[in-house]
Structures are given as C-alpha cells and as structure tokens.
C-alpha cells in the first residue's frame, strides 16, 4: 500500500519539493515580517499574513492563473505555446454573461447554462488554435498571437465594452462557504485542486500524457514511432482552451461580472507559472502540480509586495527578478540533485 502510494507520487516528489520549500520559506518570511493588526472584535493581535482569510484569498487569487497554467503546461510540454488564454478567458466570460442575460434562465439552470457556454466557448477557441496551428503549418506563437487579439476584439465587439453582470446564482456557487466561517470562499481553491489533480493524472498516468512529453521531447522520433501528432496537438490546445473556460467561469462567477478587458496580460503570468514550475519552453518537461505551485509562488511574491508595504511602483521589477531567481534556483537545485545522485550511484 505504502509502496504503491510512493510509486504514484514519485513524479510529484521529484519536481515539486524544491518549489514547495521555496513557497514555505516565503510564507515563513511573510509571517515574520508582515506585522499584525488588532482584531476589531477581540483586540487580539492577528498576523497580517498568517490568518485564514489572507491565506484563502491568496489561494483564490492563484486559482484563476493555476487552472489556466495546468492547460498551458500541457501545451508547453508538447513543445508548443499558447498566448491566447487570457483572451479565451475574456471571450468565454462575455459569451456566458451575454447568453445568461439573453435567456434569463432560472437559478439552477443559470449555473448549468453558464458552465456549458463558458467551457464550450473555451474549448472551441482552443480547438481553433490547434486546428489552425496544424492545418496552416504556421508557428503556434503566430497563430495564438493572432487569436489573442482577435478573440479579445470579438469579446469587445459583442459586449460593446460593457461589464456585464452575471446572475447571483453563479456568484452564490463560486462564493459558497461550504461550511467554513463567513468570508472564506473555498470553491476557487477546490476547483484549482481538482483541475491540478486531473492534469496530474492525464500527464503522468495516461498514454496521452506520455505522448505529449514524447512529441515535446522529440517530434521527429514521435512521428517515426507512429504517434498521431496532429491529433495530440489539437487536443492539448483544446484542453488549454477548456481550462481557460473553467477559469473564466469561476472568475466571472466569483467577481460577479464579465468584460472584454478581463484577464488582460494574464497569458504571461500563466506561461511564467508553468516555467517557474519547471516546464521547458522547448518541450518535453512540465507538470500540473509544478505549474500550480509555480502560480502560487508568483502570487505570493505579488502579495508580499503589498503585505510588506514595499513601494507598489517596484512590483514589476520585483516580480521579474523573482521569476528569474526562482527558475535559476530550481535549475541549480536540479543540477545539485543530479550530481548527488550520480555520486551515490557510483558508490
């Protein structure tokens, strides 16, 4: 039983312990230096970082990026890139909000229609990226750069730049407390965990996952091995679109509205999360759990700027430097571990 569990978690161990350690160290540093404030009800000191509300909010902030990062990791592991996830998020959200406004279905039906439209539009956009990449033979960077603009433009045109409110039924779902105290909303976190778990299973426990790494690692060898490369590429883009649709549903429902400007620039955070999580832009490497941890690290860095009262104007500099440092430390650790293992093997 124990051996089976270790076998199951082996890929997690290898890639994620370094990231988890970094997150933990940052969390400890934040706890130590964040200061505290008196609880207005009891006057007891409350740590500005280490309290359930802040931690849940951090997880919520990370969840929208992390859900998309799981899909983006599959694309990157297959040796491709998807720059359009932020625009897919915006179009899916706007399409959902407009459909719900037009149909005005009942409470329960709103949620179902919202999920179907959001996930459906996301998947269709992903399929479009995949089909165009394969069919036109143009580099995916160019295809998804084009769809990044076109899909956001479409969202803008159909929404007339309005921020469209979504029905309360959706917000009630995304902000359900599930038995926790008021003000703690675990649904985005739960969705992130479920998406990450699914991504982990697909990438590490299925034939499709092995094939994704194979075509990312060596596309020619995969072709000679008889892998259906085009079908796989279309599939990973569809999954990336689907995860953007899931993030859009949770995000728009949680914040209560959808607009064409939503998730502007998020594609770069998503790609950065995957890379910080160990995905290689040349393909063949990356994991769902790592991507989620990478997202959490980036969101924690963003949050630390506010919590530690650093000058907000330095946010981009700090995040940029932190991403490069995190990846460099990860690479350094990986090299050290490889050297240590080689030494132990030779003994």
């Amino acid at each position, binding site marked *: 039983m124990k051996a089976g569990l270790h076998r199951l978690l082996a890929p997690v161990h290898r890639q994620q312990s370094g990231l*988890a350690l970094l997150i*933990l160290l940052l969390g400890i540093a934040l706890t130590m230096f964040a200061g505290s404030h008196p609880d207005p009800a009891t006057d007891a000191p409350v740590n500005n970082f280490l*309290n*359930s509300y802040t931690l849940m909010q951090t997880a919520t902030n990370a969840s929208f990026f992390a859900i998309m990062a799981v899909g983006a990791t599959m694309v990157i592991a297959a040796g491709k890139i998807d720059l359009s996830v932020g625009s897919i998020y915006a179009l899916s959200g706007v399409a959902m909000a407009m459909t719900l406004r037009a149909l005005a279905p009942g409470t329960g039906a709103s949620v179902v229609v919202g999920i179907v439209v959001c996930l459906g539009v996301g998947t269709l956009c992903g399929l479009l990226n995949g089909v165009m990449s394969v069919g036109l033979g143009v580099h995916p960077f160019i295809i998804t750069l084009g769809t990044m603009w076109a899909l956001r433009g479409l969202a803008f045109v159909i929404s007339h730049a309005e921020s469209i409110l979504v029905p309360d039924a959706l917000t009630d779902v995304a*902000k359900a407390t599930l038995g926790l105290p008021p003000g703690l909303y675990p649904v985005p976190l739960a969705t992130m965990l479920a998406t990450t778990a699914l991504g982990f299973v697909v990438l590490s426990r299925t034939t499709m996952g092995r094939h994704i790494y194979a075509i990312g690692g060596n596309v020619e060898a995969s072709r000679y091995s008889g892998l259906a490369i085009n079908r796989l590429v279309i599939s990973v883009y569809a999954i990336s679109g689907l995860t953007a649709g899931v993030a859009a549903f949770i*995000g728009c429902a949680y914040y209560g509205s959808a*607009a064409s400007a939503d998730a502007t620039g998020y594609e770069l955070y998503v790609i950065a999360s995957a890379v910080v999580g160990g995905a290689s832009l040349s393909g063949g490497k990356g994991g769902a759990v790592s991507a989620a941890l990478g997202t959490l690290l980036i969101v924690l860095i963003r949050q630390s700027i506010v919590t530690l009262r650093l000058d907000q104007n330095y946010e981009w500099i700090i995040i940029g430097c932190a991403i490069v440092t995190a990846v460099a430390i990860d690479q350094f650790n990986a090299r050290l571990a490889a050297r240590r293992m080689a030494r132990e093997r030779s003994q």
Partner: protein
Amino acid sequence: MRTQGAMIRRTFSRTMTAAAALLVALLATAPGPGITAAQSKNVRIAMIAKSSTNPVFLSSRTGAEAAARALSAKHGINVTINWLTPPTEDGQVQAQRIAQAVNEGAQAILISCSDAAKVNGAINDAVARGVPVMTFDSDAPASKRFAYYGVDDIETGQRVMAELAKLMNGKGNVAILAGNQNAPNLQKRAEGVRKEAAKSPGIKILNTFYHVETPQDAAAKVLEVMKAYPEINGWAMIGGWALFTKTLLTDLDPRKVKVVSVDGLPPELPYVDKGIAPMLLAQPTYQWGYVSVEKIVDKVYLKKDVPAINKMELVPVTKSTLGKWARQLKEWGFTDVADEYLKLP
C-alpha cells in the same frame, strides 16, 4: 535506485511536514467571523486608485496623505494611508486588493473603481466584515459603499462639448478622445458629449476613439485620427492623457483645431498658453484624496453622517486663470509646474 528513492522521499516528507505545521498554525490563528468596527485612535485607510502610472492618481495620493497629516494633528489620532493601487487598471486585481486590505486590518477603504461590476462583491464583503468603503472619481453605485466623491460624469461630458461648441462657433466636426472603453465613468462622459452635441445642429460627432490610457498611446491615437479625418475641427477630450505629451504642441494647428479637455495637470498648461486647448476643465485631483479622507474620518472616527453623493466641481482653466491654477498646483505638491506660469498674474 533505492538510495535515490529514499532521498526523494526524505526531502518530500520533510517539506510536507513543514507545510503541515504551517497549515496547523494558520488554522489555529484563524479569527472568528463577525468582525465589527471598533473605536480606535488609529484610522488606517487603504487607498486603491485605478493605476499607479496615472499622474492624476498620484496627486490624489498626495492629497490623501496631506489630509491624513492634518487630521492626525487636529484630532490627536493617527490617520495613515496604505497605497494599494495596482500598476495597471484591472478591476479583478482591485477586488483582490480590497480583500487583502480587510484581511490586514484596514479601518476604511477608499477606491476609484476601474470596473464597478467587478468590485461590487468585494466592497460588499468588506462592508459585511465591518470595513466601510468610500469611492472617488469612479463610483460603484450598486455596492454598499457609504459615499462617493467626484464629478458627475454625464455633466462633465456635456460641459466639455458645450465649451468646445462655443470655441467652434457652433459648427464643425468633432472627435471624442475617450481612453479605456471599459471604464464606466468615461463611457458616461462620452455619452454626455454626444448628448450635448445633439443640441447643436452645426456640430457633427465623427467618432469616438479609444486608446490605452498612457500619454504616448493617446497622442499617437490623436495623430493617427487626424491623418484619417483631416476634416476634424475640434477634439472633445474626456481625459487629459494626450496633452501630457509635448507632441501635439507642434502637430496640432490651433487655427484649424480646438481642444477642450478634462484635467489640468502641469504638462497640459502649455496647450492653454499656445491656444491649442483654450480651456481645460480641471478636476482638482488632489481633492479626491484630501476631501475623501476627511469624509472617511468624519464617518469612522467622528461618527458623523456623510452624504452618499459628494459632488466635485470642475475648475475652468483658461489663459486668464493660468497663473492662479499653476500656483494652486504647486501648492498641492506638483513639482513640475513651469516657472513661467507661476509668474503669471
């Protein structure tokens, strides 16, 4: 191979043990629900403007900090401003900052909403946890904020168009420079411009032009549009972005094109002086911060009633009032006011 597996398991289990310890600690420190505002000598206000790269919000921050100092001295309390403005406009990030401000013990929140619909929920959550919220510049009227301070946006658009129509003698072709198409306050101002233009049969609105809200993007948009629509005689600028550059000082001919713009910051003053923008309708952006902080202290510390809508009046800046306005800007802490304008009567 066994050694490698053992090492990985060891590292992993150590990491996870530490993570579990952190989790236990966090659960132990979780505060209970139902936080209410308590009387305190500290009034910590989280200020969330639309973007920290826009100079109008930097002046509002200067105003807020000045009010904090003045009110601290006046009432013997400690009013502090915690600047939580995101670098670029993003309603979702603003909603996250509201939650973070509440979690970190803010006693009140002051916000200019990039997207009111996106922050309504976060404002309502903050109010439910006992933290009052006030809006400035761009309101969230559907939320539970206790007050708003700023201009009436439709009236502002109407005033821009009315002044421009006067300068154009009631006839000509007008373009609207409208900034971010998603900002509800700017949408209303553009609506006000169109509404007022409809009253003048000789005025034709050619189009509304949106752009990224940076000075360079705005100026580039004006130049691009002037090439495509050479028949333009007037620009109704519902924000001052394009006039924060020097480009249009040489590229717009004041004999052919007149500009009326909202805002009146130091970089815009040469446009008044050269007659390209004979009138600026300045929002005293310093007052966004100053007056709003006064209202918050009234509400939170002095327990006074504060009206829900607190209207800000626009200040017309023309060649005859340029010197007075320049000195006012200098007094509010702007360091880039040209000496030549300060010397004017």
